[in-house]
């Protein structure tokens, strides 16, 4: 009978090929998986739900127009340059307007009138500014 070579390791399973395969699998999944960025919420309550009691004082209304190129007009006056994600001028003016209506005990209602062809990002920019200021009564009108 031929003598066996590795008498010492006879009882051990050779794990090397398995480890090779496992590493290959690991590298494959690491490369193909893109880590998903978590999506966040920006809520809008559509006005149909807001059943106001009859004696509610009329809110202070402001109109925000969004033009097709993303230019934002607050009550007809241009605020920030188009193409910006943050709207610092709009945010500042709105927070002043909200402060003064809060002092008068009135709610602030903002009616957004986006151009039908404007991008969703421009509308989200305005909603973002409204949320930063704390204005919750938002309605959409025809742009």
């Amino acid at each position, binding site marked *: 009978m031929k003598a066996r070579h590795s008498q010492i390791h006879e009882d051990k399973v050779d794990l090397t090929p398995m480890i090779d395969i496992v*590493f290959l699998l690991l590298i494959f999944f690491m490369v193909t998986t893109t880590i998903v960025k978590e999506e966040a*919420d920006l809520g809008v309550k*559509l006005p149909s739900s807001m059943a106001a009691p009859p004696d509610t004082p009329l809110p202070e209304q402001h109109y925000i127009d969004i033009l097709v190129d993303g230019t934002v007009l607050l009550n007809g006056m241009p605020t920030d340059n188009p193409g910006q994600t943050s709207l610092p001028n709009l945010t500042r003016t709105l927070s002043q307007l909200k402060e003064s209506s809060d002092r008068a005990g009135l709610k602030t209602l903002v009616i957004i009138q986006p151009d039908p062809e404007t991008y969703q990002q*421009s509308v*989200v920019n305005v909603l*973002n500014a409204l949320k930063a200021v704390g204005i919750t009564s938002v309605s959409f009108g025809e*742009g």
Partner: protein
Amino acid sequence: MKPRPIDETTDLPDLTPMIDIVFLLIVFFMTVANMQVMQQVEIDVPIAESSTIPEDRANRITVTLKDDGSIYYGPTLVVLDDLPAIISQNKSDVPSLKVYVRADARVPFKHVREVFAATAKGGVPDVVFATFQSDK
């Protein structure tokens, strides 16, 4: 000098813990990869810094709006006219239903308005836009 005890495997490091870890990593990456494929239609959602990451994503249905105006309910392509019926059916099962609108950043607003109208027709006033908190 004391003689070393005879150990047949001293020249081989113990690989068991490493294999354990590697298997765990594989299972992790396999699960993550599958979840991504199953759940979402691929779009670029808009960026909004003031948006918040919700703790609870229950009681919501996902409507995805691609930049060409096509509408998906979950992963299935639907037509706009079917949307109110789908929403009101979900609403009857879950009264506190929210509609999670994943609209592409470059979709014209008129399509979003149509989805709004369908949502209102389905009897759900709560609409949540999907956003990223930053562009990174």
